[in-house]
């Protein structure tokens, strides 16, 4: 019976992503978890929490990105905080559902907020370098273009899935001049660009980011050339990890979900993400404001302590 409900959850999650490809995976995850909460039949808060934890684990197995993990942990935290205030289950559930809807509404708007904050940092005539395909970066560039700013964009191809070409197509549709460059050409192109803007799959406690493989390289290059390196991310991507180097990032994030299940020797696989330390990042643009990397841990402490 339990497999049945979690199966429905996974289907709901997949349906969300299919219907609206623009939605952030964490938002889809939280929406699915809220649905699960509404249909849950447990009698106690502890039972509710246990079911939730299992559901989150099941979602992580479906989509192994950092964003789903951080969205799930945030939701779990949300339940703990609400259950502390209202120990009675039925009352607690109503409050949770009400607050959950409100929370969902707020975070659906966060991409717009980030876009509004960041586009003022793009000056007229700027040359921007970005990596792979990020919906938040697209929103930022969309806002800047709507503000009648003239700029050109260089996008890396971003192998192995050529996501950069998709980004270039989307930018082309917005009438922004865009050039696709090889991943290996980042060092070559860095002297031409004025600033680098990338998205993030997860923002870690130290203020560093986890993003598509190749981001770390780009950050090191931009530091060497003294170009500002900006990261745009919504606040629900903040995750309670503190990696000290690339090996510290857990394997469950590095590889896609199906590879984790089928392959025996992970050393032969190519990781999909890498970790960029905070010393290479100039500023982070989030819906909570423009933060320096040192301010990120402050935000996380406020939430989790």
């Amino acid at each position: 019976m339990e497999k049945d409900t979690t199966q429905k959850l996974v289907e709901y999650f997949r349906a969300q992503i299919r219907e609206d490809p623009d939605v952030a995976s964490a938002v889809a995850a939280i929406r699915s978890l809220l649905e699960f909460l509404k249909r849950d039949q447990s009698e106690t808060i502890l039972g509710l929490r246990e079911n939730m934890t299992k559901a989150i684990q099941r979602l992580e197995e479906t989509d192994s990105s950092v964003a789903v993990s951080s969205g799930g942990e945030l939701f779990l935290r949300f339940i703990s905080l609400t259950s502390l205030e209202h120990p009675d289950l039925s009352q607690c559930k109503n409050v949770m559902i009400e607050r959950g809807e409100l929370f969902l509404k707020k975070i659906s708007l966060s991409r717009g907020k980030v876009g509004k904050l960041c586009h003022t940092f793009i000056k007229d005539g700027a040359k921007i370098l970005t990596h792979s395909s990020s919906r938040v970066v697209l929103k930022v560039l969309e806002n800047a273009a709507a503000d009648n700013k003239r700029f050109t964009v260089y996008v890396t191809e971003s192998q192995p899935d050529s996501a950069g070409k998709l980004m270039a197509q989307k930018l082309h549709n917005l009438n922004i001049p865009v050039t696709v460059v090889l991943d290996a050409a980042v060092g070559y192109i860095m002297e031409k660009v004025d600033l680098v803007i990338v998205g993030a799959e997860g923002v870690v406690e130290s203020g560093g980011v986890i993003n598509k493989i190749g981001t770390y390289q780009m950050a090191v290059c931009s530091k060497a050339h003294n170009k500002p390196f900006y990261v745009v991310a919504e606040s629900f991507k903040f995750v309670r990890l503190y990696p000290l180097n690339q090996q510290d990032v857990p394997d469950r994030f590095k590889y896609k979900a199906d590879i984790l299940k089928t392959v025996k020797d992970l050393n032969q696989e190519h990781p999909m993400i890498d970790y960029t330390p905070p010393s290479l990042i100039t500023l982070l643009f989030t819906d909570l404001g423009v933060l320096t990397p040192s301010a990120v841990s402050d935000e996380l402490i406020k939430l989790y302590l």
Partner: protein
Amino acid sequence: MPGADKETELSERIEAFLSELKRCGSGAGSLRGSAETARETTSLLRRITAQARWSNAGDLMEIIRKEGRRMTAGQPSETTVGNMVRRVLKIIREEYARSRGSTEEADQQESLHKLLTSGGSSEDNFRQHFTHLKANVIEAINELLTELEGTTDNISMQALEHIHSNEVIMTIGRSRTVEAFLKDAARKRKFHVIVAECAPFCQGHEMATSLSKEDIETTVIPDAAIFAVMSRVNKVIIGTQTVLANGGLRAVNGTHTLALAAKHHSTPLIVCAPMFKLSPQRIQIFLRSFCFLLPGEILSKVNAHCPVFDYVPPELITLFISNIGGNAPSYIYRLMSELYHPEDHEL
């Protein structure tokens, strides 16, 4: 009618203040330090609070915001005016929250925690009327004024911790804060000061004269010699016009050169800046005319550019000494969130 008289008197004072500000910018009016500007702005805002007509906090904030916009438009390079307006707006918000008896005024910023736990709309339009609000706000502004008066002394009191005997200190241009800082240390320690003259207005000369009157051994060097002399310097202590939100500085031209030379020689760079210089604004370029210093034959043949300020990135700065103590540049964002409300960043 006494009401109308007060209104006209108030607008006259505001106009007088605005024209003072405009004149200072072009160098014609009396050269005042930013501390005096901050004090005058705050007293003017206190007067507006006392004399203008308003019935609730929302109206008062609108009035102050409007006047604040006019004042900052009058002299955009003088950021202390805008900073004081934002401080007063934050004071009004706090007093309003206190009058309403709400205890969550401590965390009015957006945070993940607030996103998760708030139930219902957090819109607060400040429309409730409280009888004691005026008195409370004026009292809080008086406290702010007392704080402003003590800033230079608070900074100078920390001098002995940072300056040791027989040290060589370098500074640039003329900063009243650094002057007081060095003079305070000179009462108990013997040290040597090198002042970069900071062309083309050479304010460094006045600084050197003033320091040598207190029996401090001073040397004046041209700006071009900064790098050459840096190897003999133990510390660099500078003032600044503005501290930006990322921990960077907007300081007098030549400061970036000084900071880069200090970084190259691994010399600590200490910035003495009172809290009222902290500003949430972005970098803008200001140019000042110095054509009168160039000989006539050159003027017709070349373009002369004289930027007034330099931007110094936070990586080059070691320590900020302010009236509330010493802080690292990476901590400035936190101080700013305590002083100003995010909605007031744009007036």
